[in-house]
């Protein structure tokens, strides 16, 4: 099947920060899968659209098991990335689709890129690669909108 390119273009992606710490478990026996599943995941992002260039810049932050107090054993991860996107011929697109590409797809792609980076880094660690679970992007956007309403 021949793939059709999306009007959304990823122009640039930069990893701004990556920090991985390994906390040695006190217990000898534990289920790595279960442990990974119990990690807390914090995600934050900031999006800005340049009216002149029509470019969308998106900063994304992901912290896994990064609580100050009592983090779980294993990996403590913080990654940050920046991406630049552009929609080709936005005038030709419906408003709904344009919003979908601008908000969902951009964030989705950023999280995917960072997921890949997290996996690559942790794959060299004692517990093997940590694969960030699928994230509810809708909820993230809702939370962000709620944050905006409060301010």
């Amino acid at each position, binding site marked *: 099947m021949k793939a059709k390119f999306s009007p959304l273009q990823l122009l*640039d992606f*930069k990893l*701004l920060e990556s920090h991985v710490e390994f906390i040695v478990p006190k217990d000898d026996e534990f289920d790595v899968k279960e442990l990974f599943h119990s990690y807390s995941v914090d995600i*934050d*992002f*900031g*999006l*800005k659209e340049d009216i002149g260039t029509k470019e969308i*810049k*998106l*900063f994304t*932050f992901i912290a896994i098991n990064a609580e100050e107090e009592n983090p779980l054993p294993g990996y403590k991860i913080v990654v*940050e*990335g*920046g991406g*630049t996107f552009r929609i080709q011929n936005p005038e030709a697109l419906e408003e*709904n689709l344009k*919003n*979908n590409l601008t*908000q*969902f*797809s951009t*964030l*989705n792609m950023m*999280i*995917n890129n960072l997921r890949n980076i997290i996996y690559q880094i942790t794959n060299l660690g004692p517990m093997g690669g940590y694969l960030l679970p*699928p*994230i*509810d*992007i*809708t909820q993230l*956007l*809702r939370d*962000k*909108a709620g*944050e*905006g309403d409060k*301010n």
Partner: protein
Amino acid sequence: MNKTEEKIKALASENPASKWKEKVAFRKANKATLRQAAKVALRLLDALEEKGWSQARLARELEVTPQQVSKWVKGEGDFKFSTIDKLEKVLGITMHAILAEDEFVTTEEAFEERLKEEIMAYHQRRAQTEEYYKLKNQVSSSKAVMAVSHADGDLIAMAG
């Protein structure tokens, strides 16, 4: 013996009239030199086209005969260093880079140009990264950077 048979016999004779054997032997023995001469010939033709010059004009500029220039552009030239130097000056080209075979040769201008491109690319990357950091600072402050308008019915791309 018909004409074709006569021709074949003449070609296969020990001293053929067309001297093709000598020509082949010469090409074999001077393969590398001829290849270099061909490269120079192509570069000369390109330079003449760029400048809009005729072969006769080049001959005048270099104070050589038009026959000599004709030989060069046919790939039959055997160049002295002084001739190469003159060609470079008159046409504003660099021949030593063309002449170097299987060797990475760069001119000072080409090196500077490349360096300039690399510096510009670095500055672009840096500027882009600074933009991301500006966004990061906005995220960590209390003000939300984006105002998300999300319709409840729109549930596309739930997981990512």
